[in-house]
Structures are given as C-alpha cells and as structure tokens.
C-alpha cells in the first residue's frame, strides 16, 4: 500500500507561491518570474551566508503571508528544508513565525518532499500548510566543497547550487493569493503524490550527482506509470529537478530502454534556470532552491495562465554528506513525485 500512488481524498490547492533568488538566477532565462532578488551580492543584508539563506526563507514565507493577508494562526503547519547542517537555514529563517514547524532534509528533492508531506497534512489535518525550501550557492559551497575564494576548476558534469528560496501555500479550500498577472486564472492543485524510494547504483563522484539521482527518478517514474496505466504523453510536462544536463540525458536513455518514452515531454529545472553555456554553469543548476523557484515562479505561472494543464513534478535529491563522500560511500538518490493539475 505505502509504495503506491497516493490519491489525495480531495484536491489540495496551491493557493499561492513566493520566490526569492540571487542576482545570477534573476539574470537567467526565468528571471522575470521571480518575486524578489538581491541586486548586489546575495547577502540579503546579512553578515554570513548562512544568515543570508535564512533571510531568504523568511522573506519567501513573509511575502506569502503578506500578500494573502493571512496571520500565523491561519496556517496549520510549516514544512521546510535546506542543505545546511541540521537544517538551520529553515529553523532560523522561520523562527519568527508562530506556526507549527517540521524541518525536512531531502537534498535537492526537498521542494517535492515538502509538497508531498504538506499536501498530505492539509488533506488529513485540514486547513492551510506552507511548504518552503532554500539553498544558497555560497553556504552550500562552504558546506560541500571549498571556501568561497578558493581557486579551482570543476568538471563538466558538476552542477551549480542555486541561490533561491520558495514558499508554497497549500490549502484544502479553493482560494487564490497570487498577484493578478494572468487573466482567467486556472488554479493549480495537487491530486496525487508518490513518495520516492532511495536508489543507490554505486556512483561515488559528487561532481556527477545527475548520474547518482537519475536511477531514482527512473524508479519513481516506472512505478508511477506502471500503476497508473497512463502514458507520458498524457502530461504536458514531466519535470525533474535537478538532474541537470547529464542526469536528464541518462534518465531519458534508460526510460526509453525500459519502454517509456518521456523525451518529448521531459524537462529539468536544473537545465532551465541558467543559460548554462553562456554563464559557465557546466551541467546546470541544483540545490533545494532550484526546483522550488522554477516550479513556484515559472511552472505555476504557466499553469495559472492555462499553458500547462497537467504536470508531473519529480524532485530528485542526492542523499550524501561531505563526510560520506570522503569515506568513499556511494551516493543514494531519491525522487518524490507530485502531480499538479488544473484540468
């Protein structure tokens, strides 16, 4: 039972969303879809990168509450995660809100994990839930790679952590708190979720996380399509986040070999957020914030405008730590699936 598609008892509406990004993400192809950015240096007025990341989460949730004119007491729970040790980006960032809080860690899959758990919570407990995530290039570099000013080169398969935070407002009631930027708004809702299962195919190269995560994405997709009986072309988009260029191409190859042709409808948040060739981002974006801001900013806008009607969002994460990599352990991947529809 637990390994099946979970059909929510009623639709959970994504009643609002808010995004905060760094200056490079704002300068990227999707820049116009993001709500707030730091025009200067991505410090968001803070004196450490960790505080900057927390501030981004605080801003994302704060602007969502501000725009919807909802009070802390109107929100049943906050689900939030980030890449920092012990999830302090979320814990400190959301400290000022008087809302029950669950900290999540799913690496780059956290946005989808938060949407899964948040929608299940809203569907069972009832009311409104906020799911938020963040990642910051500088705090992630410090934690997972080298000091900021260290001079080095990275291989072509490496991905670039996105500076971005997003918050989604989930509600069991049909209500909308988006800016009035589209006519005849179609309200996106979550109807099904499918939790991911960790898959480890033995990849131990932290500079090729796309390859570590692709098998997990394949596993979730194969389970979803074999159980639902649907075919990929039933969807406007199957969007993974963030396999990057390398992982996306592995996923499409393997899916085709397994008899599931997704190439025509597949896209990946890591490939969308930067002009990778022009800005030297190698295999594309990654980090919790990547799939979160692309979904909250761009994909939901396209759904509300009626240009996308039914999508599968797969948040993919590489569940390693710097220590597990140093100790030579291979990198397990995970992929949580959320079906978002306006149809």
């Amino acid at each position, binding site marked *: 039972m637990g390994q099946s598609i979970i059909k929510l008892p009623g639709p959970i509406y994504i009643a609002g969303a808010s995004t905060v990004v760094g200056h490079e993400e704002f300068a990227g192809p999707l820049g116009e879809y993001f709500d707030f950015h730091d025009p200067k240096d991505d410090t968001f007025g803070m*004196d*450490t*990168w*960790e505080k900057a990341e927390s501030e981004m989460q605080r801003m994302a949730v704060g602007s969502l509450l501000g725009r919807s004119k909802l009070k802390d007491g109107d929100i049943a729970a906050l689900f939030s995660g980030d890449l920092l040790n012990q999830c302090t980006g979320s814990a400190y960032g959301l400290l000022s809100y008087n809302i029950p809080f669950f900290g999540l860690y799913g690496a780059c899959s956290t946005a989808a994990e938060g949407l899964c758990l948040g929608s299940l919570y809203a569907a069972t407990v009832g009311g409104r839930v906020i799911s938020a995530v963040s990642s910051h290039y500088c705090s992630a570099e*410090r934690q997972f790679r*080298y*000091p*900021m*000013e*260290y*001079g*080095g*080169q990275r*291989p*072509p*398969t490496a991905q670039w952590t996105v500076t971005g935070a997003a918050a989604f407002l989930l509600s069991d009631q049909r209500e909308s708190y988006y800016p009035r930027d589209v006519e005849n708004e179609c309200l996106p809702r979550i109807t099904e979720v499918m939790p991911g299962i960790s898959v*480890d*195919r*033995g*990849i131990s190269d932290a500079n*090729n996380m796309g*390859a570590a995560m692709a*098998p997990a994405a394949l596993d979730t997709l194969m389970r979803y399509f074999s159980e639902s009986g649907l075919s990929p072309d039933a969807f406007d988009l199957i969007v993974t986040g963030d396999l990057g260029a*390398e992982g996306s*191409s*592995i996923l499409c190859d*393997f899916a085709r*070999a*397994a008899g599931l042709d997704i190439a025509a409808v597949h896209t990946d948040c890591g490939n969308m957020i930067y002009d990778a060739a022009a800005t030297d981002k190698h295999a594309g974006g990654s980090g919790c914030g990547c799939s979160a801001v692309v979904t909250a900013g761009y994909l939901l806008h396209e759904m509300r405008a009626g240009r996308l009607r039914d999508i599968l969002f797969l948040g993919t994460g590489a569940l390693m730590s710097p220590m597990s990599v140093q100790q030579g352990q*291979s990198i397990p991947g995970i992929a949580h699936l959320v079906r978002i529809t306006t149809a």
Partner: protein
Amino acid sequence: MHTDSENYKKYVNARAKKSPLAKDCLRAFLVGGAICTGAQGLLALYKGWGMEKDDAAALVSVTLVFLTALLTGIGVFDNIAKFAGAGTLVPITGFANAVSAPAIDTKGEGFVLGVGAKIFSIAGPVILYGITAGTLYGVIYWIINTFF
C-alpha cells in the same frame, strides 16, 4: 537496462564529458609560465637593488604570497584560477590561496574556532606531509653523510 552497479558506473564514466585536457594544459602552461617569468623578473629587480641572491629569492616568494592573498581578498584570484587551473595551483600562489581563502571564509565562526581551526583545512595535508617528508629526508641525509 543497466541494473547492476558495475555496469552502471562504466556506462556513466564512459558518457561523462571529460575536462578539456589540451585547453587546460595550454592555459596552465601560459599562466603558470607567466607567473614564473614575472617572478624571475622580480628576482632580477631585487638583485639589482643590491640584495643577496638568497634574500632576493625569499623576497620573491613573499611578494607572490602577498599578491595572491591580496587578489584572493578582493575576490579576483578564484576567477584567474578558474581560467588557469594548475597554472596558478602549482606555483606558491596556489598554496597562498589555499591558506588565505579559508581564512576569509571562516571569520564568521570567530578567530579561534573559525579562522584558527580551519585556516589549514586545505593546505594542512601539504604542510603535514611536506614537513614529514622533509624531516625523513633530513634524517637519511644525515645518516649518509655521517656514516658513509
């Protein structure tokens, strides 16, 4: 479908785009060579000012370390290194950057637990094994000179 880990690793390694070796080597040669040529010029300059050769050579190293730390501090060195690769890594500039970058990066955690504890987080292995190798070499040198 490659289900087994060994096959999957082989497949992934075979398809992963490699770093452009020829381009990286050429850039490393040009930038590294330029640094060494510049250092040679400095040596000539310092000797021209009347310094002994050993003193002048030491001052050249100090100058390169200072310039690297300065460029690291103003956020320029990592951009040069991204272009140059081993060209900036191999000369003493790489070592100076590996020490100054963590020093800047960890000041948020304080001067003891941050800068003090983590300043050698990258250069530490070089220092430890460099000194160990130097000591061993010294002992062997002493044995050979004393007994043979």
